[in-house]
């Protein structure tokens, strides 16, 4: 595939992520922070997010798997996940966290379990999407092209 084509593909793909709500404008902020001095900034931050989130999700799963559930602790985990997902613009994950926190507050075990599943699902989805996007980027760069700048005009 030639560079131009790949670039268009990248643009369309990115747009779709925004339109489908996987990403929000905060992601754009991250992209804007990237420059020649930090060409991999977005990838680095997102990788950090993946690591951190996986750890959090594990902790969260464990905390809900107990006999006596510590809702406060679970809420703290969710709160953190909410903060980091919102910082990178993972909108759907963040929204799940919001709902999740409500259930934690109500100490609703069923609601929490459901939310946990949902959060995990959304997390996997956005992770796949982003990894695909980064793959495209690598291809473009490898072919000598540059990554287009996105503007949220839609």
């Amino acid at each position, binding site marked *: 595939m030639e560079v131009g084509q790949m670039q268009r593909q990248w643009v369309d793909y990115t747009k779709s992520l925004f339109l489908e709500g996987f990403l929000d404008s905060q992601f754009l*902020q991250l992209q804007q922070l990237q420059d020649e001095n930090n060409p991999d900034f977005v990838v680095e931050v997102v990788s950090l997010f993946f690591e951190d989130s996986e750890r959090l999700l594990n902790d969260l799963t464990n905390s809900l798997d107990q006999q006596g559930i510590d809702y406060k602790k679970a809420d703290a985990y969710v709160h953190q996940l909410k903060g980091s997902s*919102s910082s990178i613009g993972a909108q759907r994950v963040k929204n799940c966290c919001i709902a999740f926190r409500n259930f934690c507050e109500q100490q609703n075990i069923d609601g929490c379990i459901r939310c946990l599943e949902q959060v995990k699902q959304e997390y996997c989805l956005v992770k796949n999407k982003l990894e695909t996007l980064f793959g495209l980027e690598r291809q473009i760069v490898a072919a000598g092209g540059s990554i287009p700048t996105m503007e949220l005009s839609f």
Partner: protein
Amino acid sequence: MNLSVKAMTSSSGAWKAGELVSDQFPAGLRVLVVDDDPTCLMILEKMLRTCHYEVTKCNRAETALSLLRENKSGFDIVISDVHMPDMDGFKLLEHIGLEMDLPVIMMSADDGKNVVMKGVTHGACDYLIKPVRIEALKNIWQHVVRKRKNEWKDIEQSGSAEEGDRQQKQSADEADYSSSANEGNWKNSKKRRDEEEDAEEREDTSTLKKPRVVWSVELHQQFVAAVNQLGIDKAVPKKILELMNVPGLTRENVASHLQKYRLYLRRLSGVSQHQGNLSNSFISTQDTTFGSISSLNGIDLQTLAGQIPAQNLATLQAAALGRSAAKTGVPMSVVDQRNLFSFENPRLRFGDGQQQHMSSNKPMNLLHGIPTNMEPKQLANLHHSTQSLGGLNIRVNATTPQSNPLLMQMAQSQPRGPILSENSASHVPRLPTSMAPTITGGISNGVLGRNGIADVSRGTAYNPIPQTSPMLSFPGNQSTEISVNSFPLGSTPGISSMTSKGSFQDEVTSGMKGSSGFIPSYDIFNDLQQQKSNDWGLQNVGLTYDASQHVSPLQGNIDVSPSVLVHQSFPSTQQAGQNRDATSIGKAMYSLGEGMEQRNLQNIGQNLDTLLADNSVRVKTERVPDTSSQTNLFTEHYGQEDLMSALLKQQQEGMGPAESEFDFDGYSMDNIPV
């Protein structure tokens, strides 16, 4: 002293000579970021670097504290997350405020009002909501400048002849200001490590070069020891200074630190004291809710309360007052059930004799890092027992001391906070209860915002008006810039209307421009001048009326600086990081409004509404209800009515919402007879 920033180099070389051009002013600002979330930390670091700041990051609060302790003046500002595993962000905030006195910005993904309010009351100079955008970070330097400016003011307030100069300088171009401030501050702070300063520097008041004292742990301990030895009531700066016997430490330094310390104590202990305290001197005399005070005082307060939020808040040493402001809601006679601050005493009736309500005012945490402009003297006057007002140094400039029971109250409550020291002009007769009558009209507003407001409205605050509305005599300087404009009060228009009111003293120099109708007349404006930044909303949030009810401070200490009130007027609409403050302010306003009779608030202008609406903080403060008889007290009296009415109006409109939102614990806003 030339304004160029060369001196700064000592610190981190960040400020290089010549670099201090206005548009480069923020470059090189040394920021410390604390957050346990690595993703956020990385993003923040990158954003701050992009803003040309020098960034140090750490993921643990303990690490941050030790970094700060080792390098006392190695940082200009701290940004910290609220929820951290090893230490609560607010605790860290307190430590930093007491020990290093640096401006601290809190941030969190949590945007609940309570949390934001907590930030304000603990003295955060701003509260950002995650995800943080780079735009929000670009302007954090203003907090540094503001703080320095206030410090200077503190130092120089002791009678420096330079005040005028200072003010001028202050009003000078921002860049200049910054630079001079920087130069003075940083340079001084660099030089003055632990009070090792050159006598010359200190004496050189004309040059804005006030050494910035860094209150190290040891120094603070010495200070505390001295205070304990003297007895907290008898601890006056001069004696403390003598006891401490630290070379290079000035009385002003001690005075301002004492202010903060008192606020801090008040805050700690005041939370439990609710309204009860308010009753003292507070309006007790006036049971006429503000009616009696109406002589403006009451109204002033109310209006102040209402109005203040916007503007006063700004002026009010937002920071300091922040806390109690909310609560105090200045229950202006309007015994707003809604308790703006759901304090204990729902009604802060001002004038109603209920002084108590104010008691609960939350102790305004003026302390934390909030450079309270309270003049040491004023503090003395205040004698607040205000715990409630905690920081509300709403100095209610009760012009008519007597008449403003409320003011008194307010003054009381406000711990010497940023008592608009200015009042000088305002005759603000110190309210008997140490209510810092400073609330020269405007101030009371401030107070109103905070608990004080309620209290302040009590008549005391509004003293400013009573007489000749000179209250607002913003201390002289009148350049009060009450740049309250920044009040985001959503509807600032309201406030602006207030400003026009001008019935308040002339001072009302529009500082309040944007501010919601806050009647500039408040002394707050005086303070505002200093502040110049209307960003109060945010910073002042601290003043805010801490929903807590420290309304009790009203007791007479309605020191609620209008700035406090002003804050409240922030249109709580803003949610953006910055707006957080606004909301809190709005809340404060609300409380004020609430206190004040809801109805009357209408006058206050829509701005308040926005605020109120958001914050549900009913600013009980005396809404100067122009119509309602009770609260009318104030409205009528003052020229400030407009302000108040605006405030009130806002409140009223806003009232609906929340009353309960703010759990002003101490605030017995209810007292405000409606």
